[in-house]
């Protein structure tokens, strides 16, 4: 296959399958190639290629001034990234695991998120913090947290999470080009998921949700690691005669009200699915927004299928914690189907 043919696959050619890890690697490589101010650094991202191999080969290709290992200190990684961005570079840093990003929390919330405002827009910090997050890989303690709500709660940050290899590429490219700091949450159990797709970021914006599967009875709102589970649940529900629409949020902050409310106003029922603990979790914000904006269209309370309010369980028990197809289908059954009053909905 020639290089030109690879770029523009014709209708008869098979689009190659890529994993999310490969797509992210390609996004970093393309950004490093196109923009000489882009730097990639963190723990073990150099010769090792990261513990998930997302930066595989980048140090060898771009040199150790642009892709490099740092001392082991997450606050140091983010704090120095802030300084580098102040001086005109675009750092893309990796936190090795979700819970190991917490030492950087002060730098993220007190400086990265606020410096633009503090300087009336004079200092922009185009920093991307890549964080592998969530469970489902049999990880031990502190390796499986879903920490999205901490970041989404912080004004000044954008929070993005891809669920497919194609989005992983497009959203990471957009995040690197974005003038705002972006918390880029990578669902680690989807790193090896495959998709036949052409990697391209033109036309994808950083702040829009997408309908992954159209449906008419219920809107499932998922993101990152739970999108696949939601799609499986929609397949299973179809066999039972229920049509589930599945939305992939992609951007957790800002929130795409337009896409989500349009769907829920049509279906009248909504379930938010996430791995993170339910209490004060991201789903609470989604449910609140839907009750504010879709109240007269709702046939049932907005339900949450979420992790329990417990520290993330050990490998042998995580299956009980993670949202499953069955748990989603059970929630669908609880959406007050017998109480539907068609006359009420007619106004919508």
């Amino acid at each position: 296959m020639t290089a030109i043919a690879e770029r523009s696959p014709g209708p008869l050619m098979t689009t190659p399958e890529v994993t999310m890890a490969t797509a992210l690697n390609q996004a970093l490589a393309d950004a490093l190639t196109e923009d000489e101010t882009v730097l990639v650094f963190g723990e073990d991202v150099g010769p090792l290629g990261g513990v998930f191999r997302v930066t595989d080969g980048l140090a060898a290709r771009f040199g150790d001034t642009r892709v490099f290992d740092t001392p082991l200190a997450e606050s140091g990684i983010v704090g120095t990234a802030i300084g580098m961005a102040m001086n005109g570079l675009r750092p893309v840093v990796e936190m090795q695991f979700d819970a190991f990003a917490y030492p950087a929390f002060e730098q993220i919330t007190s400086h990265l998120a606020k410096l633009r405002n503090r300087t009336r827009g004079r200092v922009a910090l185009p920093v991307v913090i890549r964080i592998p997050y969530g469970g489902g890989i049999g990880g031990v303690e502190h390796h499986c947290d879903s920490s999205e709500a901490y970041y989404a709660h912080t004004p000044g940050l954008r929070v993005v999470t891809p669920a497919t290899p194609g989005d992983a590429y497009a959203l990471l490219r957009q995040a690197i080009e974005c003038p705002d700091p972006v918390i880029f949450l990578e669902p680690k159990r989807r790193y090896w998921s495959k998709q036949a797709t052409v990697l391209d970021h033109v036309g994808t914006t950083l702040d829009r949700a997408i309908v992954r599967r159209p449906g008419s009875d219920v809107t499932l709102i998922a993101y990152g690691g739970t999108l696949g589970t939601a799609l499986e649940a929609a397949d299973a529900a179809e066999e039972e005669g229920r049509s589930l629409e599945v939305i992939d949020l992609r951007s957790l902050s800002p929130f795409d009200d337009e896409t989500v409310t349009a769907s829920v106003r049509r279906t009248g029922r909504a379930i938010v699915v996430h791995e993170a603990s339910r209490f004060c979790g991201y789903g609470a914000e989604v449910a609140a927004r839907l009750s504010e904006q879709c109240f007269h269209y709702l046939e049932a309370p907005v339900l949450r299928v979420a992790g329990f309010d417990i520290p993330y369980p050990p490998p042998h028990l995580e299956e009980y914690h993670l949202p499953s197809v069955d748990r989603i289908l059970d929630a669908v059954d609880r959406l007050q189907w017998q109480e539907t009053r068609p006359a009420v909905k007619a106004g919508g």
Partner: protein
Amino acid sequence: MSPLIGAHVTSATRVVPRGRKPQELLPTGAPLTLVDADGRAVPSADLAMPGDEALLALHRKMVLARRFDTQATALTRQGRLAVYPSARGQEASEVGAVLALRPQDWLFPTYRDTMAVVCRGLDPVEVLSLLRGDWHCGYDPYEYRVAPQCTPLATNTLHAVGVAHAAKLKGEDTVALVMLGDGATSEGDTHAALNFAAVWRAPVVFFVQNNGYAISVPLSKQTAAPSLAHKGIGYGVPAMLVDGNDAAAVYAAVRGAVASGAEGGGPTLIEALTYRIEAHTNADDATRYRGQAEVDGWLARDPLARIRKHLIARGLLDEPAVAALEAEAEAEAAALRQRVNADIAHDPADLFRHVYAEQTPDLRWQQQELSAELAAAADDPEAAR
């Protein structure tokens, strides 16, 4: 390899053998001094006495800095500033460090270093924006290469390392000087910053003003190290202990550290021994944790009197020149008073404008919500009355 990044350094991350023996990283036993408390020149093997012009500039800027500081304290008592952390007594350190910087260097100040920021040339009224109760730092950090004054402790040490490392990658001749206090040396970010700077050989000057107290907590409860400068050796960072009330010594030490950073020598840690004459802020009561005898002892070692005695003894300064300088400082203080006494025109809508590069739909909506609230209040005769 890109033309911008990496052309000027062979490796940003390789640990370069420093070629320094451990004892070369240690500070001297006694603080480095060039002018003693009585204004007499002290011969030094480590520091060179600054030239006459530099000494006169130090004296001049210290006079202006002190008057600025006492004016700001007075404005706080009058309610014109929300709060002001004074650096009175620390003028030699504040001014000496800043005058040693070149225009292309960066300064990373803390909330106590307002006189250092003003000394760098920024408009004092802009610099006081935050302390007057505004929501932003007032000045453009790029204009004089001065970062916003940092309120959290030690976090700015890492920003300085980042700016310096980026400068090195871009081939810029830029050194970053970060100011921190004795208390901030206990924070984890100071540890990370010294370590990152050393490993990356980043051109950074860590300028610690040891003024004896972290609010109320004395140094003895902060560290068990022989001195804060002794912390450098653990990171492979050369360190100096300097008399922080000796402007000549501070200036010479920082000049040396800047030159070393610019020549590829990496970071330097400087501990300047000084004393905070005022309480932590106007909201603090220093009599609860220190005695007047201690304060009096430090007043007798006043940094401004010291350099003035030295300059007069050497015939570089006379009483009429001092009087003229003090009149100049008084005029600046009067201008500052007048400008700060004018109220800031606040537009609440500004709070929503710079959170993101482009306003999000939520912020747009919230801004409208607040505007509507304000408009309704303005139309309400009850509220207006």
